[in-house]
């Protein structure tokens, strides 16, 4: 473990992993609640065009990805709000366009395979202090938005009509979530890669919701699991010479499987306590909890 700390890029990457592990699940909790689990994937595809543009114009690929993916996310949100039936097709068109555009632009640049590969699946050997400053600033912005607008976003993701009837600016908040997700994708792409980036937004949340009872609890647990899988995945990838992104994602999935098992055991125990104990209100709710717990496992 201490061996990898001799390398500056590993020290930078580990700090980055902590930031990503905190940020991605925090945003992901709202994304999952809004039933937009694949939003991050779509943004990742779109971001690729931004990287292509950045490489082609010899400006920063990260800046290109940031601008294009935020614009893309806002476009997705506007289309989603406007049309009900045709929205998914329009989204698919945007995703494919983003991916194809990115490949064309990077190959036109001549950089070709290797640089594209590093953005698709992540590459941490080349991270610099400048990258870290950018990621830290963006992560602070994302966590700040979650802190300031958390309660509004919670109500929006619960029920958009109730949020409107409460006088919330639902269009603004919807765009805010989408744009925040886009920034998160850009933060995470260096370590995890665009094709797997949304896994760290979704999988820790899916794991946390197996064991947590509330929204805040789910978010905090997901952030903890996110940091755990990002840091240990990075360490594992260094030790065993594996690509970092897939290692992080597989570890997060392993945590999810463990959470499913642990959660159903805990709920079964709680349900049994509910039926056996006389202090708790009747057998009905307990039995129902058990049924729901199993349904949830199947659903997840």
């Amino acid at each position: 473990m201490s061996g990898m700390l001799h390398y500056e890029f590993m020290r930078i990457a580990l700090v980055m992993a902590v930031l990503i592990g905190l940020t991605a699940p925090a945003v992901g909790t709202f994304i999952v609640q809004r039933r937009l689990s694949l939003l991050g994937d779509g943004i990742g595809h779109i971001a690729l065009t931004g990287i292509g543009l950045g490489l082609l114009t010899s400006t920063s690929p990260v800046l290109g990805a940031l601008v294009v993916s935020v614009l893309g996310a806002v476009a997705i949100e506007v289309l989603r709000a406007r049309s009900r039936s045709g929205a998914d097709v329009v989204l698919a068109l945007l995703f494919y366009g983003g991916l194809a555009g990115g490949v064309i632009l990077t190959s036109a640049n001549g950089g070709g395979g290797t640089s594209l590969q590093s953005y698709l699946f992540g590459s941490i050997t080349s991270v610099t202090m400048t990258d870290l400053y950018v990621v830290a600033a963006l992560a602070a912005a994302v966590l700040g938005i979650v802190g300031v607008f958390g309660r509004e976003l919670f109500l929006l993701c619960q029920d958009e009509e109730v949020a409107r009837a409460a006088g919330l600016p639902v269009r603004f908040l919807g765009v805010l979530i989408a744009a925040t997700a886009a920034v998160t994708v850009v933060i995470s792409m260096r370590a995890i890669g665009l094709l797997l980036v949304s896994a760290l937004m979704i999988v820790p949340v899916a794991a946390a919701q197996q064991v947590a009872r509330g929204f805040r609890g789910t978010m905090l647990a997901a952030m903890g699991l996110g940091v755990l899988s990002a840091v240990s995945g990075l360490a594992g990838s260094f030790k065993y010479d594996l690509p970092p992104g897939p290692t992080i994602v597989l570890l997060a999935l392993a945590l999810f499987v463990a959470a499913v098992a642990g959660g159903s055991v805990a709920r079964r125990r709680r349900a049994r306590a509910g039926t056996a104990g006389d202090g708790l209100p009747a057998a009905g709710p307990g039995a129902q909890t058990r049924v729901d717990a199993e349904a949830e496992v199947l659903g997840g």
Partner: protein
Amino acid sequence: MSDTSTSRPPFAVTGGRVRRDGRDVLSGVDLRVEPGDVLAVVGPNGAGKSTLVKALLGLVPLAGGRVEIYGVPPARFRGWRRIGYVPQRLPMGGGVPATVREVVMSGRVGRTSRWLPSLFADRAADRAAVDRALETVGLAERARESSHLLSGGQQQRVLIARALAGEPDVLVMDEPTAGVDARSQAALASALRGLADAGKTIVLVTHEFGPMEPLITRTVELRDGRVVRDDRVRRTAGSAA
């Protein structure tokens, strides 16, 4: 604005038309909800009851006519904290669990400052309002449980508590008693009686009055998107029984 708007009716719709999929769901509805009304919207399935209350709240666009909330069109209305809306939909939220307390607390959102890190700081007034709302619907001891694991009737009461937590002047409820057992209905009726006695305005869509019947001061019946009956029951001048 609030000075002039207190004399205005909570809701007024004139010539309200709503079209969906090429047909009129509401066709030319005129309705003026007066302050203090306890108004039941009744009618068969598909008569446009839910659409009417959504139109009153500005949640569905009108194809014709106009709606005013306290004299202001919904798009320019700013006094949303005076309105509490209980939607019909039972399955709450998305895939992430939320405790009963978290859901009810979100009803306070229109009353809290946007610039406080609200997710991590509960304020005393919010807490007190949430406690009262939970007490009113009889879910105080379940505040820390996951709301999606409750029964249908209990979930409905969570949604009502969320609206109550905002301490609104007007409560709009879409089928609040659907799937709610008799005991919860009685609890709900007594909660509504307290609100009605305090002069609040209540609009509710319902199939059956049940224990709420004595509270109702006005019944509006819809059929095929039109108002076919608008009866006032005078609670004071009515039957002495």
